[in-house]
């Protein structure tokens, strides 16, 4: 089953400055397919269009042309958002609230019954412990990332979309995220994430899409990088 699909997805940013119109082609005719229960990594250099693609899928940006389908439903579709868990690149929460208040707030937005029980469950998954009662301004980068993952799991989504999930984390944090992604796959979830850290993607992904200058240059199955390193494949692809 195809969980996520894009048809000729294109995004052009248009900006007017001093009467002159500037256009920037951020994403160009992308055709993606993410299958059920796979870990799909989108890799590319900075500015290659990874975050733009994710924002388009989530409806934070409107496509210039093309279509997006999630679980067979054309996006934007509000109901489909309840099946998606999203982790932004730099998660930010209101610093005057506690972790528990934040999670409680997201529970209310997704109409989760028995919020306290669910908050306890996800807190255990991300190992946030008693820190959940602290205010956000007391959180470290790692704790913020755990809280961000917790909020993405609250409504038990089938598709997880993570934007640069290991960006800025220390080696222990990176390993935890890696294990967490594997755990989610074992629970039957589909994971679609972006990264520019090829070594991380290589370790956990079933398939990888190489994005370069807004174009999806190549899609590789994990069998291919068992023969040749993903880094080599990536460099060959973008230098073509």
């Amino acid at each position, binding site marked *: 089953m195809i969980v996520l699909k894009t048809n000729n997805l294109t995004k052009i940013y248009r900006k007017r400055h001093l009467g002159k119109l500037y256009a920037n082609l951020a994403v160009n005719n992308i055709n993606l397919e993410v299958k059920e229960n796979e870990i799909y990594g989108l890799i590319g250099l900075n500015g290659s269009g990874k975050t733009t693609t994710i*924002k388009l899928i*989530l*409806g*934070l*940006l*409107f496509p210039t042309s093309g279509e997006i389908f999630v679980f067979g439903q054309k996006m934007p579709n*509000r*109901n489909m*958002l*309840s099946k*998606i868990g*999203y982790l*932004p690149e*730099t*998660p*930010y*929460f*209101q610093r*005057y*609230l506690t972790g528990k*208040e934040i999670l409680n*707030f*997201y529970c*209310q*937005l*997704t*109409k989760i019954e028995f919020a306290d029980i669910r908050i306890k469950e996800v807190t255990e998954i991300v190992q946030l412990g008693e820190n959940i009662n602290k205010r956000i301004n007391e959180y470290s980068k790692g704790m913020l990332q755990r809280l*961000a993952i917790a*909020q993405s799991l609250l409504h038990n989504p089938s598709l997880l979309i993570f934007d640069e999930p290991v960006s800025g984390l220390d080696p222990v944090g990176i390993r935890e995220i890696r294990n967490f992604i594997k755990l989610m796959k074992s629970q039957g979830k589909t994971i679609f994430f972006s990264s520019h850290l090829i070594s991380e993607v290589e370790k956990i992904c079933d398939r990888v899409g190489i994005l370069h200058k807004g174009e999806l240059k190549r899609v590789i199955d994990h069998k291919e990088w068992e023969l040749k390193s993903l880094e080599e494949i990536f460099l060959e692809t973008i230098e073509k």
Partner: protein
Amino acid sequence: MKEIIAIIRYTFKENIRNKTFYVLLLFTIILLFISTLLSVLGGGESIRILYDFGLVIIEFFALLIIVFSGVNLLLEEMDSKALYLILTRPIPKEYYLLGRYFGLLYSVILSMIFMSIIHIILLLYTGWEPNFSYFVSIFFSGLKITIIGALAVFFSLFSTSRVSALVFTLFIWLLGHFNQEIKFLIDKISSTILQIVMRLLYYIIPNLQFFNFRELSDSGIVFSKIILNVLIYGISYSCICIIFSILLFKYKEF
């Protein structure tokens, strides 16, 4: 509806835990006490001075809070990307905007009530006899704040910076107190184009003088018909601003 209430609570908590909010509130209370001292210099008019000065202070500080918080209400969440996590939930975009706006109003109106209670205590201490006009004045100051808050949110949605949104809102607040002068100018200007522009301004800019019931309370007469008209005008103006804000927000990219 539950989602809007959740966002109202979230915004309220965020505001009441913000130190700037407390500093402004504390500053107002100090000024109210200072006005008590000043009123002593007024001799026979001491109650009148404390009454008027107190109402002006309450409205002015409520205005400061609503303008600064209103402009930051969405811009801060856009800059920090905190709203990504809210807008990727299965809720309509307008729920977010409405929740944020009413959450801010709730915080400011509550702080106005708190300031008024202190003002009333000080007035009673100086021998003031409570009257209905006082509560009408405070109520309409609150309505004025509602309009300014809606304008701050509206300007923050199409301004490129906080400063421009702030300047626009304060400019409209200022012009809103000079509507009669604009009308006077329309009759005096000979240029047709300028006349059209001024006439447009006259109708677009909220007439904030309508909400000034401090002058009316002098005569002790509260005109129920005027009150009803001003109430309808204030609510309608705020609603139109919020409807336009929702339209802008719906088509905004993040």
